[in-house]
């Protein structure tokens, strides 16, 4: 009698134990899955805000109209500083009145050119405040191509969505679209390591701290 009871008791225990360990394993896997999904998919969604550029600018059309490619609007001033994104007067030179029929151009003329308001462009490649970057030493001296760091923006007909990190206020282009930081092209990512790697390849050394962090 006791043996049978004992046997059934121990079987029950075993079954319980078996069930317990399954539950635990299942919970572990569940936890793993949830966090993996969160970390890889939901987190990037939450981290970055989506903003539209103020004007849906068409680079391709304009590139076809100028003589000097990128340099026509993004040029070096006499003192060596880089002009960056052109000021309103650059656009107003041709767009005093609407030239075509696109909605974007109409917006440009009505909202910005006529009232004389500067266009609040969102800058994809803006580095954090701690970084000092000189266009002159990279482009003028070493002849680096624009697309190496900025990608093929010249061929685009529309502006991309500007994604901004909610914690730091830095554009997503800096860390890169890939949340793991894996890149295929040189312009996919522009963190310190990316600059350092290129420096090492081109110049043979990564350079001292104060060169870029003054």
């Amino acid at each position: 009698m006791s043996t049978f009871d004992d046997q059934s008791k121990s079987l029950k225990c075993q079954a319980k134990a078996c069930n317990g360990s399954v539950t635990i394993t299942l919970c572990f896997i569940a936890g793993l899955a949830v966090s993996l999904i969160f970390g890889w998919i939901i987190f990037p969604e939450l981290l970055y805000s989506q903003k539209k550029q103020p004007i849906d600018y068409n680079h391709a059309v304009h590139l076809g109209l100028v003589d000097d490619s990128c340099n026509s609007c993004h040029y070096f001033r006499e003192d060596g500083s880089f002009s960056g994104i052109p000021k309103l007067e650059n656009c107003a030179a041709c767009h005093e009145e609407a030239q075509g029929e696109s909605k974007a151009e109409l917006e440009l003329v009505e909202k910005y050119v006529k009232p004389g308001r500067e266009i609040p462009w969102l800058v994809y490649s803006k580095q954090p405040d701690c970084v000092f970057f000189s266009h002159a030493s990279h482009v003028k001296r070493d002849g680096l191509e624009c697309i190496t760091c900025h990608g093929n923006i010249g061929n685009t007909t529309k502006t991309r969505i500007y994604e901004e990190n909610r914690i730091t206020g830095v554009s997503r282009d800096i860390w890169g679209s890939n949340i793991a930081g894996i890149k295929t092209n040189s312009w996919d990512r522009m963190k310190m390591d990316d600059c350092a790697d290129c420096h090492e390849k081109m110049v043979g050394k990564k350079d001292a701290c104060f060169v870029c962090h003054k």
Partner: protein
Amino acid sequence: MKVDRRTFLSFGMGAAAGTALTPLPWKLIDDMSIWTQNWPWTPVPLEGKVTYENSTCTLCPGGCGITVRKIANRVVKIEGRKNHPVNNGGICMLGLCGPQLLYSPTRIKGPMKRIGQRGEGKWQNISWEQAISELSSKLKSLRDNKKTHKLASITDSDKSIRTSLINRFVNAFGSPNTINLTSSDDIYSKVISLMQGDNGCCSYDFENSDFIISFGCGLLDGWGSPVRMFQVHSKLKNSCSNNIQIVQVEPRLSNTASKSDLWLAANPGTEAAIAMAISHYLIKENLYDDSFIRRETKNFDAFKELVLYQYSPEKVAEITGVKVNKILTAAKAFAKAKNPIAVYGRGKGDLSGSLHDYMAVHCLNALKGSINKQGGIWTVPEKNYIKWPEIKKDDIAIAGLNNKRIDSVTEKSILKSIPEKFIENISASKENLIEILLISESNPCHSLLNTKEVTKAFNKIPYIVSFSSFMDETSLQSDLVLPNHLYLERYDDAQTPKGFQKPITGLVKPVIEPLYNTKNTGDVIISLAKELEGTVLESIPWDNYLSCLKETLNNMWKPLKDNGYYIDENYRPSNRFYTASRRFEFNTKYGLGQFSYIEPEGDIKNYPLTLIPCETIRLASGYIGDSPFMLKTLDDTVLKGNDLLIEINPETAKKLGLNKCQKITLQTPKGEVKVGINIYNGIRPGVIGIPKGLGHSAYDEYLSGKGINYNTLAGPVEDKISGINACWGTRARIVT
């Protein structure tokens, strides 16, 4: 399925493991590091357009041209202006700190009226209308009671348009009591006037000179036009000459002395005796400029006799404590030089000596004919562009102006103002000699000798108005504060810098819009004149200060606006003497130039040591206090923590049983302070050196409470012959 603690824990572990396999932790850490850099209190330079503006620095009378760099309209750096005739791109530490002064928390942000006791620092912000109305009603009542002579003003100098305007206002109001702080340059200019009849400002053609002997002047410590002096000094040092070219005569190894070619450590107060010994050598060895002496001077024989009889190198060695062979080395080098210049003064040129001492040094220059010729000493005209008509006086003003000046200065006096006597007489008088005092661009409560007496005198003045831009000691003792724009925010003229050899006027112009609700003092004076009306308004007829400047500067205005300075390149000094004899006169109404020792205060029995102030370019000791940057450059041997260290010779320290970690009490007849000790071989035994410029009790936590103020330890000492203050130090004792 039972959900219990274990399942919960295992879920957690799974989540943790999963998270570690995602980029989340690393991305968040990276983002945190950027986030911390964006905290609003972390200072980050502005981004924006870079612009440059030129102006003139006024933080000392050096008159350097400056170029101010701004980013997004915020002043970021001040640099010396390239190719400026005075400083040629160079700048000193104080000039460099302009931005710190501009954005200082001690800036007074608008007119304020005192509530509570003087010195408590309790203020009520008022509007400019209220301020001017209050002050003008007080001035009006002084006029109504026919007590106009009880208005007085203290300003930094009398040479600029602003100070001339303040003086004019006070005079037109009906008071003779315009006090302008004076310096050794004023005394030297007076000596030139006595001996040559020339009424200009003394100036030195150092750039063409091949030898400088300085009797006490801190050539690298802020004397003259400091940056110009650095460059002059460098030029001499960099010339490939083997000769001795720079000689420094002073009791301690200052910065200037340590960089000179020859240092003569004369007993304090006896420096001019060395000048007499050198004159002795020149005359005895017949190495003086005979043709100049014969053809252009008078009474040389009297001087010659005095020198040969009383100032042999052996005698002077006894007086000064400098060995004979060293004196002779200096004398030989001076004799050999083609265009030597001898200068007399102390430190930065605010401290003094006897009139005879100044004359003795000027005679030395005359012996080598370094007068009115290239590489020598001449004069430049003083503010000759201020050509205002005579002031209009009504009866009240005439009556007021008939009163004697409180500082006892008359037309016969050597100097136009004696601030020390002004303070002394107010302090000693039973009745209130002054009812209203205006103070502009100066800090008498800190920078005048005998601080206790100054405080006492100020307590006897019922109404004090400060135009200072900073909450300094004087503003703290005021009843009404009418803050001036800082020099970077206003229009003003800058007169020819001290000792510069060509007349040059600089334009002080605003490089930035005024940060606060301040007003140019010139405009305040003009507003007051408008309120007072009558002859005061007739004497000050301008609409505003800018139009006053434009009108006064006349055809200099356009070149000043375009170029920032106006220099008379073709200026040539007069080669005539305007004395009665039309010659350089060795004998003046004050006698011959000679060494005349000024006895320091205190009897030698009770105060066996001699205390002298030490000046350095790193310690601003005038109206402007040291900026935080400058304080950081002071060595541990000058300021340690909040303690000032005095320089004391190892021998003296040993005799007194002192060690370097000790804090001691330093006592003089005028005061007592606690200081630390710097045992220093570079100061004479029996002499103590005390850095001058600290000991502020106002300003802010960066400056206040650090060190002690030399002026609390020493009082003015009158040179009996000329009436000028000739205090160069005081006797002292150490109590452990």
